[in-house]
Structure formats: structure tokens, C-alpha cells
């Protein structure tokens, strides 16, 4: 066991994909819109405006809370978090500080080896997003521009307990969280577009002395790829400071993508005093038991439930079920194809190998963004079963289907991939190979029967894998015995 133990807690902001913003009726979907086209007096903080709570945002927050095993409170409140920044129109953010809508939840994560771990969640609260500051690239005057399209978009912030003990667990946690919000349909969960944002608190405990380092906060980890990297970097950095016998200052650091390291942003002394106090413009948020129960009943099947069901219903190994259910689209595609073909394990095999590899290589998020359809699997399996193509060929043409969306038989026809069943042609190839390699023939005669593989290989090479290996084996054996 290592002398040092890493302790990580995460704070995650999830942007809710509601129709309108948290406190006004502007569209909440403006990622691609021209700057400052999705704004109104309320979300730009004009004098005299007041906030009105978006009911859909409350519904989404309750949904998320229930799916994450939180206690949802019938009474919660909004508060103001005060600080000055140009992207914050009112000079305060409306959030829930004193009485969040939900506390005390958990998420279960599972690694590749099936080891499970519960990560406790401290709280979930609702708040509004800020705008975006754009530092104009060619501006010589050092001026900045502000875009308020995002100002007021609803967020939920989820805070974990410090239960995460490695950067890898942090990644698994975020993947699970993303999968759940996507299952719920409450957020795109897209980290690159800022729909999921993660800050991390990390400290390292020296198990020998029992002493813990100060906590370091890392901000701006805005990509899945970097969560693990940033935390690994930071854990190592803190460990090294401890090893030198020095103190780790409590501070906030930012992840620098280019240099692949964390950089100090501000020390504890420079932290803002946010002067939280109850938002007087909004009455308490009171939810009825019935309302909460109704949302609970309407929750869709979540990844863990689906995984268990896949294992039972389709007889899949745990690993397959875990991978297939990690993404809502993948799971529903699989289920459709499995039902259509009646061969769940085969579908799973193809998806887990060919399909996912293709998606990874091409940075495709959803299987529905490829051209493959569940019907393609049905046709593909029929071609294999009827002996028209080999399994090898089937595997190879998946990529073409993914890319072009053409039917398997169309691709087989176009590329001439049908199985070579002509026994005369196969015999001819073998005879030719025997003539060219008399040594091999002699070895066979001397009793080294495994040499037959050489001749089968020759046929496969010549037919580009289209010959049925069983037929080739039969003919090769016959010819070699006759020799």
C-alpha cells in the first residue's frame, strides 16, 4: 500500500436543457446564437426587474435529485451570492445556499473489474448561470466584450462528499453522472460545450503520520479527458510537496490545457466574501409530497436498473451490460437490434468491438449519429447464417455500413464479398500452392498435419477471406492425402 492517500471531492454544475431561462422567458438554448440575442431586461439586470422561478427547471432539479437518491425537500429557498464581475448582470447570482432543494444523495460507480463503490452526495441546489466574457483577440486596447445569452440559464450544482479516492474514480463518477442526466433528458451533459462543468477539491493524506495536506481547489476542468489528467497532476504535485516536508498552501488553481498543468489562481486570503442572504424577491419554494411522488413515478429506467435487466433479459455478461447501458442511445439501439435479430450477444459483440471503435476514432457521441440501423444487423446476420458471407467479412463491412448507411447485401454485392463456394476454384488454388511449395507437401506426408493451415491461408489470401474455412479444410485435406 502506498504511503499517500488521495482525497477528492467534486462540485459539478449541470446546465439544464429547459426551454427558457431560470428566471425569465428568454430561450435557454443559445449555444450557437449570435451574442446578446437571447436577452431581456430581466437577464441583463435592468433596474426594476424581478425574477420568476421557471417551473420546468424545478421539475428537472427534482428529477435529477431523485435519480441521484437525494432527499428532496418540500421547503427550499433562494439566496443571493454577491460579487462583482461583468458577466454577472445583477452583481449577484441567485442560488440556494442556506436551504438547498436536496441533500444527502449518492451515486454508485463501478470500475472495469466490477468493483463497486458508493460516492455520497452532500447537496444539490438550483442556481442561474452567468454570461460569458469574450476577450477580443485583436483588441489593442485590452477591452473585453460580454455576451449575456447564457446569463440566467438554469443550473443545478451537485456537491460530493470527499469520498473519491483516485483521479480514475473521479472520471468514473463524472461518466456515471453524465449518463444519468442524459437518461433523464435534463441536460446534454456535454462537457465541451459547458453543459457539465467540474471543480475539484483535492488533498493528500500521509498515512504514516496521519497528517493531511491543505485542500486545493482546481477550477476549469472543462473536458472529460482532462479530469483524470488534472487530478493526477495535482495529486502528484501535492505528494511531492509533502515529501519535501513542505506545506501545501490552501489555494485555488486552474487547469491549463496547453501546458498540461495546474496554475495557482488565488490564495485563500484573496477569496471573496459572497455575503449570502435570502433572496427577498422570491418566496420560499414549497413542493408538495404529491408533486415529488409524481415525478418519482415518472422517472425513466436508469443505467443501473437497465444494466441489471440487460443481464437478466438478454443473458449478457456484466461487462457487456455495463458498457451498453453507459449511454442511453447505445442501450436503446442495442435493445432494438437485439429484439429484431433475436441474437443479443452477437449484437453486443459487434457493438462493443467494431461500432464503438469506429465511434471513438471519429469522435461520434451517439450511435444515432452514425448511419447504421438495427435492421442492418438483422440483414447482416441473415447473410452469415445462410452462408453467403463469412463472420470475418461481416465484421469488416460494419465500418462501411456505419459510414455509408448502405445495406449489408448492397455492400457485399458492390465489393464482391460473397463466399466463394466453387469447390473447383478452391481446389485449383490449393493445387497451385502445392506445386509452388513441395517442401510443405513433403512435411505433410511426413506426418506434420498442421501444415494444412498453410494451404488454407493461401486460399484465404487469394479469395480475400471470402472462402468458407470449413470447405477449404475439407478440400485441402483431400488433395494432400491424394498426393
Amino acid at each position, binding site marked *: 500500500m502506498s504511503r499517500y492517500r488521495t482525497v477528492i471531492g467534486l462540485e459539478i454544475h449541470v446546465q439544464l436543457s429547459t426551454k427558457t431561462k431560470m428566471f425569465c422567458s428568454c430561450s435557454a438554448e443559445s449555444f450557437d446564437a449570435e451574442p446578446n440575442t437571447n436577452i431581456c*431586461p430581466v437577464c*441583463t*439586470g*435592468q*433596474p*426594476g*426587474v*424581478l*425574477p*420568476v*422561478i421557471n417551473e420546468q427547471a424545478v421539475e428537472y432539479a427534482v428529477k435529477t435529485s431523485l435519480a441521484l437518491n437525494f432527499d428532496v425537500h418540500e421547503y427550499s429557498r433562494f439566496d*443571493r451570492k*454577491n460579487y*462583482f464581475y*461583468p458577466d454577472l*448582470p*445583477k*452583481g*449577484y447570482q441567485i442560488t440556494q445556499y442556506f436551504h438547498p432543494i436536496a441533500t444527502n444523495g449518492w451515486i454508485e460507480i463501478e470500475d472495469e473489474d466490477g468493483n463497486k463503490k458508493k460516492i455520497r452526495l452532500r447537496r444539490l441546489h438550483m442556481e442561474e448561470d452567468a454570461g460569458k466574457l469574450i476577450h477580443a483577440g485583436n483588441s489593442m486596447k485590452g477591452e*473585453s466584450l*460580454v455576451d449575456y445569452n447564457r446569463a440566467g440559464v438554469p443550473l443545478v450544482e451537485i456537491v460530493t462528499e470527499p469520498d473519491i479516492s483516485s483521479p480514475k474514480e473521479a472520471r468514473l463518477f463524472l461518466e456515471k453522472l453524465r449518463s444519468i442526466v442524459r437518461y433523464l433528458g435534463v441536460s446534454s451533459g456535454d462537457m465541451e460545450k459547458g453543459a457539465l462543468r467540474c471543480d475539484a477539491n483535492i488533498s493528500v493524506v500521509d498515512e504514516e503520520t496521519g497528517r493531511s495536506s491543505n485542500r486545493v481547489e482546481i477550477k476549469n476542468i472543462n473536458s472529460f479527458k482532462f479530469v483524470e489528467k488534472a487530478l493526477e497532476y495535482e495529486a502528484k504535485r501535492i505528494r511531492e510537496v509533502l515529501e519535501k516536508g513542505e506545506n501545501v498552501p490552501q489555494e485555488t488553481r486552474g487547469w491549463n490545457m496547453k501546458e498540461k498543468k495546474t496554475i495557482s489562481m488565488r490564495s485563500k486570503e484573496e477569496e471573496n*466574501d*459572497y*455575503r*449570502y*442572504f435570502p433572496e*427577498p*424577491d*422570491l*418566496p420560499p419554494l414549497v413542493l408538495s409530497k404529491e408533486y415529488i411522488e409524481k415525478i418519482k413515478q415518472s422517472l425513466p429506467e436508469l443505467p443501473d436498473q437497465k444494466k441489471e435487466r440487460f443481464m437478466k433479459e438478454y443473458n449478457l455478461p456484466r461487462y457487456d451490460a455495463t458498457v451498453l447501458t453507459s449511454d442511453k442511445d447505445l442501450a436503446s439501439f442495442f435493445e432494438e437490434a437485439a429484439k429484431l435479430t433475436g441474437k443479443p450477444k452477437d449484437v453486443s459483440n459487434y457493438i462493443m468491438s467494431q461500432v464503438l471503435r469506429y465511434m471513438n476514432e471519429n469522435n461520434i457521441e451517439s450511435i444515432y449519429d452514425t448511419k447504421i440501423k438495427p435492421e442492418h444487423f438483422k440483414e447482416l446476420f441473415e447473410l452469415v447464417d445462410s452462408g453467403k458471407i463469412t463472420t470475418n467479412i461481416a465484421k469488416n463491412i460494419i465500418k462501411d455500413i456505419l459510414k455509408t448507411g448502405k445495406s449489408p447485401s448492397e455492400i457485399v454485392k458492390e465489393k464482391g464479398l460473397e463466399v466463394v463456394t466453387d469447390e473447383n476454384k478452391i481446389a485449383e488454388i490449393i493445387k497451385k500452392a502445392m506445386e509452388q511449395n513441395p517442401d510443405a507437401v513433403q512435411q505433410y506426408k511426413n506426418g506434420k498435419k498442421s501444415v494444412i493451415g498453410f494451404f488454407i491461408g493461401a486460399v484465404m489470401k487469394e479469395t480475400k477471406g471470402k472462402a468458407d474455412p470449413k470447405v477449404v479444410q475439407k478440400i485441402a485435406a483431400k488433395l494432400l492425402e491424394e498426393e
Partner: protein
Amino acid sequence: MGYKKDQIKDFAEEIKEKDKDIKAFITIVDDPEVPESGEYKGVPIAIKDNIITEGIKTTCASKILENYIPPFDATVVKKLKEAGFVIIGKTNLDEFAMGSSTERSAFFPTRNPIDLERIPGGSSGGSAAAVAADMVPVALGSDTGGSIRQPSAFTGIYGFKPTYGLVSRYGLVAFASSLDQIGPMAKTVDDIAKVMSVIAGKDEMDSTTVDVNIDFLKDLNKGIKGMKIGAIKTVFDEQGLHEDVANAFEEFVKVIEELGAEVEWVDVPSIKYSVAVYYIIAPSEVSSNLSRFDGVRYGLRIKGENIKEMYMKTRNAGFGEEVKRRILLGTFTLSATYYEAYFSKAQKVRRKISDELYNSLKEFDALILPTVPTPAPKIGEIKDPLTYYLMDIFTIPANLAGLPAINVPFGKSGNLPLGMQIMGRRFEDAKVLRIAKAIQESTTKNKDGKTHGCYREIKS
């Protein structure tokens, strides 16, 4: 009697003439919009300049908004226009409504029409002066700690602060959101009731408004026979209570008794904490509400080397002394270190004061007390802000508890008018007006035989 489109320009000119010495208005609209329809078609109304009016400059009497033209109408303004009212101008106030004299306007002080040497009170001093000087029949003010009632008392008019949540605050530039309420100021209770019928009601844009339906006019003239009224005797503990005010209060009790109501003296001991509580809660909310004036999106901007410098220069040049004082006070009381000791404690005391008032009001139909401990002081007479703060002692409780309260002009100190206050149960605003109306009828008939000061009925 409403004005027609071709008359309104002359009316605006008339106001300009009358306002020369008084300076009640920051903006007089040259060519005001006259609605085509509505019950009160063509009746002019003045609006306090911290209530947003689309296309008409709204300054809050602050340099930071000196040239701010809002992109929308406050809900009350929208409702008034729909009812036919003509927005004739925007009245002066203490900057962002912080003050009790209208001397704290960044532009100029307003003078009391009764005595030009004196303050009209504040912060709705412009609205009070405009009504008192017969420039307009009605005006809107806003009341956070007495800003409608106190200037009404100093200028001898009726000024009503409705129950918190009865009138939409959407479009009222926030001072202290949990205390602010818009209300009418006029020379008759009938006019107050009429404006209330127009502006009251649930507003989708203001989540703190409540869905109640009140008929302000139906029982207005039914008198107060058989009612039980509590006269707050704690008032006499107040050291700054002027002798004339004390006498007028006792006289006020007699008049109410003569009208057939039963008056009982009650103690509300916790009101002595109301000023202290108010000056923690209000500045706390101010420090947050005024953060948006940062020079980034609208209003005054003074350039700086960096963003922090721009903030500091803009806010330093844009805000006056009293506003800065309250922002500093509120920033302090909300800071993490002092939150428990000040803001949190003040909230608790606020609840205690409210509970005491609610309990008293279980026994009584209404509570009465003077509006202000003194008559209007002279302009510049009071230098120390604390003296002004202490003058709010009788008006603040209604704000802390969210109760409806009206100033009734009653009694005099020399030539200066005095005012008495009627405070009612939450959402029993109509009853408060009914009591005020009974007193108006009796005092005007008994004393000078004519309808007291009624300039013109606002009915078209």
C-alpha cells in the same frame, strides 16, 4: 375630469410654471401620451422617478442613472395607462429613495408647498409636493420605511402604503426588496381608493404579489361604528415626540370615538427596536440591490485602467453620500463574520415586532399612531443622518410587518400640517381606507365645512 389630447400640452406647461419654486419634478413630459380609453381617461398622474417608465427618463435622482431611458413600463405604470391615466412627469426623491427629506436628490432639493423654507419630507417628496401644490390630483410614491406616509404628513395629504404583496414591485427600482411597496398619494381617500383599484393585484412578473381580490370602493363610506381601534401608547415614550403631535394624537383618538368606534390604549413595546432593525435589513438589501450599477451595461461609466478601477470610479462618481453610507453599512452587516450578529439577529427581531403587531391586530380592527414625531423641519436644518433615521420610528413598523398603513392629515403645528397613521391587518387595506374616509368626512365637515383640500375628483 380628464384632459383631452389637445389640452394636455397646456396642462404640462401649467405644471412647469407652478413647479418653478417647488421643484417637485425631475422630468415633465412635454407631449404626454393620452390613452384612448379607460375609466380614468385623461387624468394626469405623477410618478416617483424610481418607478420605470418606458421611453421616459428614470433617474432615481441619481447621477448613475442620470440619462437612463428604460426599455419597459413598470406593471403599475402599464395598469395606469390601461386605465386611461396620463403619465405627466417624474417626481423628485432622495437618491434611490434613501432619505426622508428629498434633500438627498443628486439634482436639487424639493420645497414644501406649505412653507418653501421647509422640506416636503421624503423620499417621495416630489410626489407629495406635486399633489399638495395642486399640480396633479394623484401621484405614485414608494414606501420602504415611511417614504409615502412621512412626506404626506409634512405636506398635509393622504398617502397610502398598501400591504406588502398587494401591488406589484415589477419596475420599481429596488431599494430594500422585502420592505418596498408602491402606493398612491392624493388629497382625498376616494382618490387613493380609486388608484388602488387600478394598481393592486397579483402580477406574474412579481412572485411576491398575492392573489387577493379587494374592492376598495364598495364599503368606503360605511363608517366605523362598532369598530375596535388600538391606540399605541408606546408613542409617548419617544423622546423626540413634539408636543403638538402628542396633542393631535389625543385629539385624533377623540374624533374616532365620536365616530362610534371603541378606542383602547395598547402597548407595542418592540417598536422601539424598529429603527435599529430597519437600518440593518434595509442597507443589507441595498448593498446587493445596487450592485448592478457598475457601469457595464447602462448608466454612468467612468473609464479605468482595468475593470476594478472602472467599477470604483463609476460608483464613486455615480452615488451620493447617503447611498454610499448605506452600501457600506449593508456590506458590513452581510459579511460572513458579522452576518449572525447583525443581519440574522435583525431578521429575528423583525419577526418579533411583526408578531407583536399581528397579535395586537387580532384584537383590533386597526392600530393608530402619529405618522411622524415632528412637523416638517427646515431645509438644511438637520445635518446628522441619525436624527432623520430616528424620525422614521412610527412608519417603519408597518414596513417590517408588511401591514397596510395610511397617513391622514390631522392637526397642525403653527401653519404646518401634521399627520396621523392608521395601520391595518394584512390585506385589509380596504378597511384602513374606510376608517380614513370616515375621519376625512368628519374632520372636513366639522372644521371648515368643505371637502378638505380636494382639488378635483380624478373621475373622468
